[in-house]
């Protein structure tokens, strides 16, 4: 007798489009996914436990490794968290420098997203275009702190070094260079007929589901919820800056589909350039570090601080106990929530769509597993 059977496919942890070591267990009927289970934990390094063993300053390099594509943002969030806990006043110049760095890193991170997204739907070329521009941001970081991937540039109470001479001009140059490139991306990929047809109406994430699963960042905004921590609970100088929150418009189909998630990130890069320009104009001269003791002994207190990272809300929950290192440090990674929405939106789609959905959620596994 003939019988049919569900095909169980193990997608990952070694798979070209699971962006690192995500593992998806797909139950498929031919090419159509019936059930999808994301499995995480392949990149767990115990960063939270390490935090209990090293002192507050020493933990900064570990935050680089939470989300290696947006190290500056992770530095930024951790530094702000400890400063709020301590009540440290950060010099204004340092605040501006941090915001510039965070926004530059947001652009760099979204460029990697742009490239790998194109590659996952079969267009190889955008990847190299995205990395070409990212290279320029990395040059800027290297000029500022000597590193190209894990910067360890910010410190509690400011930034480690002042900007080198001429850096602001180079940064302006980059903004002028980068803005027209977005049109090039639109010409090459965004409005390609096949690309729009592949992504429109695929993997629609409704605002209700997004909120229920705790999805944050561009993925939430693509679902039409204008929620941005930079606006809701501004940190550093974000409250003095003007920028818009791009939300999904359903240009190629429904609001909250893969195309919206793509488009929101592209628009966010434009907003980041806008923020950087304002910061460069407004940045005063002065110190870049507050006076902070070598060893921080914070009296028993706790804080939950969150920051808007390229992938969503990065939260630090720190419980201090009067010793040089925290009693407990919990990191809330945006990717963890964003991954779990897959089991909701993947069933009914095809294997090829699964790849597009994974790419459009732009998860990064070190942030998920920590």
């Amino acid at each position, binding site marked *: 007798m003939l019988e049919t059977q569900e*095909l169980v*496919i193990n997608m990952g942890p070694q*798979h*070209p*489009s699971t962006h690192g070591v995500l593992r998806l267990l797909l139950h498929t009927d*031919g*090419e159509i996914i019936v059930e999808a289970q994301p499995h995480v934990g392949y990149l767990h390094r115990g960063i939270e436990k390490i935090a209990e063993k090293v002192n507050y300053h020493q933990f900064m390099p570990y935050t680089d490794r939470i989300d290696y594509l947006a190290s500056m943002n992770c530095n930024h969030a951790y530094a702000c968290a400890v400063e709020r806990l301590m009540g440290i006043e950060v010099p204004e110049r340092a605040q501006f420098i941090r915001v510039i760095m965070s926004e530059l890193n947001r652009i760099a991170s979204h460029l990697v997203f742009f490239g790998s997204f*194109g*590659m*996952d*739907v*079969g*267009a*190889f*070329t955008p990847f*190299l*275009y995205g990395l*070409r521009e990212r290279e320029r941001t990395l040059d800027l970081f290297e000029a500022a702190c000597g590193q190209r991937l894990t910067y360890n540039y910010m410190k509690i109470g400011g930034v480690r070094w002042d900007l080198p001479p001429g850096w602001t001009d180079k940064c302006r140059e980059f903004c002028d260079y980068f803005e027209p490139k977005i049109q090039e991306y639109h010409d*090459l*990929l965004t409005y*390609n007929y*096949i*690309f729009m*047809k*592949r992504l429109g109406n695929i993997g629609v994430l409704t605002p209700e589901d997004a909120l229920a699963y705790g999805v944050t960042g561009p993925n939430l905004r693509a679902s039409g919820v204008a929620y941005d921590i930079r606006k809701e609970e501004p940190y550093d100088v974000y409250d003095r800056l003007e920028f818009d929150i791009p939300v999904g418009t359903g240009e190629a189909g429904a609001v909250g589909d893969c195309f919206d998630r793509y488009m929101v990130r592209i628009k966010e890069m434009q907003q980041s350039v806008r923020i950087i320009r304002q910061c460069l104009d407004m940045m005063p001269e002065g110190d870049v570090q507050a006076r902070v003791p070598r060893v921080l002994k914070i009296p028993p207190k706790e804080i939950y601080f969150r920051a808007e990272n390229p992938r969503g809300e990065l939260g630090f929950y720190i419980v201090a106990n009067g010793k040089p290192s925290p009693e407990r440090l919990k990191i809330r990674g945006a990717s963890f929530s964003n991954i779990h929405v897959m089991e909701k939106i993947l069933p009914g789609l*095809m*294997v*090829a*769509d699964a*790849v597009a959905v994974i790419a459009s959620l732009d998860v990064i596994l070190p942030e998920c597993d920590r």
Partner: protein
Amino acid sequence: MDQLTKLFYSLGLSPYYGIFVAAFLLAVIILAFALLYEGVATYVERKVAGDIQSRIGPNRVGPYGTLQWLADGVKLFLKEDFIPAQADKLIFRIAPYFVFVGSFLPFAALPLWDRFVPVPMNIGLLYIIAVTAMVTPGIVLAGWGSNNKWALLGGMRSAAQLISYEVPNAVALLIPVLIAGTLNLDEIVRAQGGGGGILRWFIFHDPFSFMAFFIFFTAGLAECNRTPFDLPEAESELVAGYSVEYSAIRYAFFYMGEYGDMFIISAMASAAFLGGWQLPLIDPLVKIGWLKAVLQLGIFLTKTLLLVLVMMWIRWTFPRLRVDQLMELSWKRLLPIALFLLMGAALWTVVFHGKGIYDLIVG
């Protein structure tokens, strides 16, 4: 071939030896040409990709990296030919040969220059369509024999895709056949010569044949599994599809098959629509026989390779379709259009007694 037969006859040997030797020599020449083309094509593909992606491409082996393909070939020969323990060994082994043979056999029936086809046959076009279909079972066997789920998915996609696209492909090719009134490729090309230059090419024969060319080329892209139709191997979805378990020279066979297919589709397009070895002014100007043949061969190869270049250009620019969109495109779009064009071309032939636009205007 006749002269070889006579030579053997004069030596006191059976003339059949002559036929055998001639056929063997011909096969060696065609194989050498096919392999050379496939090697150089991989180099060109990588250079084209480099140009499109604002990088350099291979530039280490030989001047401007021109010997890269030789190094790659040597590497692929020396690698371990790995067969997975759970694979169906016989099927796994023979699958690449299907693909390679299917893409190599059509080379024998290409019209290279005036009145010369390596293996003359009066149904050359039908023969080419038939033998290229051998690629499909090869890919399906590879997908099945690998005992790998990704490979299996790739194999299934490929079976569906190639069968669907052969239909609009063949229907579009019927239009030049209709105009020329023959399946003989040499005669089809000769029918595109004469006064009027490139306006005598079948692509400019009537509006229907003009559109048929694009239908044929699109369906042809799908038949060689090239982006945007590279679903069977879909690197980012199915890892590498049917070829995921293959290594070394067996893997290379699949690639040679793909590049061979590209050449065949382009050659068919240039022979059936773009006048094959025809180019205005060659006929009246060049009187020396052998020079003419060489020029015509050059013209034919130039047209073909330009089309191959277009395929590469498309590959590095477009994203990939999804599998259901692929089927929809074939059955709901390309096939109805192709059938409509075929009917239109048939009507045109009846109404205007087979005359093209040029003939109608000039008289």
